[in-house]
C-alpha cells in the first residue's frame, strides 16, 4: 500500500507541466464520453502531479489533460504529490487511478507491464499484477505481454482497437515492420475470428519462410488482391476465399491430392444415401462405406451402387490415391 502524506490542491498552468509522461497507461482510447463530460461540467477530477526540477511530472490524468488542452484550457485543478514519492510509488498510484476507472485494453496492459517490469521482479508481476490486469498468473502471459511492446505503433494500435489479439500479436513479432503492417491491414479488412486469424497468420508466416519471400508480397499478390477487390463477395466470403488461397499455397501437394480425390468421388456418382469416406489426410488405413436405407428397396439400390462402383475404374484410382 502506498501511503501519501502532504497532498495539496493547486491550480497549475499547462506550461508548467512537463510534456513527457513518465508512466503512460492510455493507448487508443475513445475520448468522446470524457470530452462530453468535460464540456458539460468542466474538470471535476484533478490531475495528479509531482514536482520535479522546477516543473511538474504528470502522474495521473493524461486523458483529461489532453482533452482539456483541445478544449482550450490552459490551467488545471491538480493534486500535488510530495516530492519524495519515488517512481515505483508514483507508477503504483497511476496504475490504481486508471484501473479504478476503466478496464485496460491489450495495448494498455502491455504498457502497464512494461513500466512495472522496471520496478518489480517477474514473480511479483505474475502473482500480483497479471491478475490485477485480468490476465492468468502464468509466466508465458508475462513474457508475451512484455514482448508485445516491440510491436510498434501500428501493432499497439491494432491491439488497442481489437483488430489484433495478443497471441496473434506475438506471432507477428518476428516479422519485419513492413510485413507486420501488411498483416495487420489484412486482418483489419477481413475481421476473422480468433482461430481463423491465427490460422491466417500461421500460413502467411510459413509460406514466407518456405518460399523465402516477404509476407507482404504474399498478401499483395494478385490472387489475394483479386479476392479483396471482388465486389460480388461479402466479408465472410472474402475471408474464406483468402484462407483457401493460403492453404492451397501452404499445402500444394495436399491440395492436389484433395482435388484428385474429389474428382474421383464425383465420378463414382453414388446415390445420396451411399457415402464413401476415404482415410483422413491420405494417411489412414481404411476406407469407410455407409449406406442409409429406409426399406429393402433402398438397401438393394445401395448394394447395386456399390457393385457398379466396384466394377468401375474410379474406386481403384481412389484406393491407389490412399
Amino acid at each position: 500500500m502506498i501511503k501519501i502524506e502532504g497532498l495539496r490542491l493547486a491550480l497549475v498552468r499547462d506550461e508548467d507541466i512537463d510534456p513527457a509522461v513518465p508512466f503512460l497507461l492510455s493507448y487508443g482510447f475513445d475520448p468522446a464520453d470524457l470530452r462530453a463530460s468535460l464540456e458539460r461540467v468542466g474538470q471535476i477530477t484533478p490531475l495528479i502531479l509531482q514536482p520535479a526540477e522546477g516543473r511538474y511530472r504528470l502522474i495521473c490524468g493524461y486523458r483529461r489533460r489532453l482533452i482539456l488542452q483541445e478544449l482550450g484550457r490552459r490551467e488545471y485543478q491538480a493534486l500535488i504529490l510530495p516530492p519524495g514519492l519515488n517512481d515505483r510509488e508514483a507508477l503504483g498510484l497511476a496504475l490504481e487511478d486508471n484501473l479504478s476507472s476503466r478496464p485496460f485494453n491489450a495495448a494498455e496492459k502491455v504498457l502497464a507491464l512494461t513500466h512495472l517490469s522496471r520496478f518489480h521482479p517477474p514473480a511479483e508481476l505474475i502473482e500480483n499484477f497479471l491478475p490485477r490486469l485480468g490476465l492468468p498468473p502464468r509466466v508465458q502471459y508475462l513474457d508475451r505481454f512484455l514482448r508485445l511492446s516491440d510491436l510498434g505503433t501500428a501493432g499497439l494500435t491494432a491491439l488497442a482497437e481489437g483488430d489484433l489479439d495478443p497471441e496473434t500479436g506475438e506471432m507477428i513479432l518476428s516479422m519485419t515492420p513492413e510485413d507486420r503492417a501488411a498483416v495487420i491491414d489484412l486482418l483489419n479488412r477481413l475481421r476473422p475470428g480468433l482461430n481463423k486469424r491465427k490460422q491466417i497468420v500461421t500460413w502467411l508466416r510459413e509460406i514466407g519462410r518456405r518460399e523465402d519471400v516477404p509476407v507482404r508480397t504474399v498478401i499483395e499478390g494478385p490472387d489475394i488482391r483479386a479476392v479483396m477487390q471482388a465486389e460480388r463477395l461479402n466479408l465472410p466470403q472474402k475471408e474464406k476465399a483468402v484462407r483457401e488461397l493460403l492453404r492451397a499455397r501452404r499445402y500444394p501437394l495436399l491440395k492436389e491430392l484433395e482435388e484428385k480425390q474429389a474428382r474421383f468421388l464425383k465420378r463414382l456418382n453414388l446415390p445420396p444415401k451411399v457415402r464413401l469416406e476415404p482415410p483422413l489426410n491420405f494417411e489412414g488405413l481404411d476406407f469407410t462405406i455407409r449406406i442409409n436405407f429406409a426399406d429393402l428397396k433402398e438397401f438393394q439400390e445401395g448394394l447395386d451402387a456399390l457393385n457398379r462402383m466396384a466394377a468401375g475404374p474410379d474406386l481403384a484410382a481412389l484406393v491407389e490415391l490412399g
Partner: protein
Amino acid sequence: MGRAGKPERLVVETSLTDGPLTRVLEKSLPVKEVRERIGPSDYPDFGPGDLVLARHHGSFIKPCPGTRGYICCGLQIIHFGLGCHLGCTYCILQSYLDTRAIILFGNMEDGLARLREVLAQDNPPFRRYCTGEFTDSLLLEDLTGLGARLVGLFADQSQAVLELKTKTDRVQTLLGLNHGGRTIISFSVNAPAVARSEESGAASLKSRLAAAGRAAQHGYRVGFHFDPLIRHPGWQEGYQRTVSDIFQHVPAEAIAWISLGAFRYLPGLKTVVAGRHPKSRIMDEEFVLAPDGKMRYLRPLRVEMYRSLLTSIRGFWPEACVYLCMESPRVWREVFGFDPGPRGLIEMLDRRV
C-alpha cells in the same frame, strides 16, 4: 567426444543420497540440493545443467507401446531416466517432458535387479532391449558407466540382445569389454546439413561414424537409425552422402540393421520449436495429422524419402537389413513391395541377431 557439455550439478532425493549411483556421481558433480522427495510434478523446477536423481516407482522394463495401425519393431525398453541435453531441434522429448533437466532413476540398482530376473527366466522368448527411448543411451556413460554394466549383463544371454542408441561418440568405455556379440551399438544419423543445423549439441556426424567404426573393430555389431529423416534443400544428396560415409567407416557385415523414420511429432511440439529454435525450418514442409495423433509428412513425401534412402543403401549393400520405424503397412508396401504384418518386423529383426 561430442560437443555437448556435462550436467553441472546434482539434485538428489533424500532416500538416494547413500545409493551407489549418487556416490559415483558425487565424485564428478557438486550436490546442489537434497530434497525429501522428487516426483514427476517436481521436474519443472529443474533446468538445464541439473542432473536430478529421483526414485522411480514404476516399471523399469516395458515394451515399446507402438501405435495401432503402424508397424512396431517390438523393442523392450529399459527405462532408467528421462531427458537429454543434446538440444536437437526436433526432439520429441521437448513436448513430452516438463523439464530441461536430466532425470536419472537413482534406484537404478532395482532396475538392474529386475532386468536380471527377467533375463534369468526359464525359456524366455527372444527379446531385443534398448535404453535409448526417453534419453540417449550413452549421453552420461562417462559419468554413470551404465552402458558398460548392461553390456556385461547381456554378454552371455542366448535369448536377449541389447541395443544402445546414441547420437554421441562415447563408446570408449565399451570397447574393451567382453560383449559376447549380444550388444548392438546404434547411431542415430542424418544428412550432414541436418546434423549441423538441427543436432548442434550432438557429436558431429564424422565423430559418430568414427565411433561406429571403432565399435565395429572391437567386434560389436552396429546399427544406424536415419531418424528423423527431414526434408530440406538437397536432402537426397545429403542422405546419399551419409549412406556413403557409413559404408566407408563400417564394413557392411558389421551392420545389424538400418532403420528409416520420417520426422513425426505431436502437434504441441510445433509451438515449442518455434519458441526454442526460431531459425529452424523443420516444420515448414507439408505435414498432416495421422491417425496416431502425430503430425507426419504427407504420405507421398515419406515414401519418396524412404525409396531414395533404400535405393542408396542397397546400392552399397544389396542384402542390408533395412526397416521402417513406426510406419503403416501401406507405406511398407509402397517402399518395399510388401508389408511384414504385425509380427513380421519383430521376427525379421530377431533373426538378424
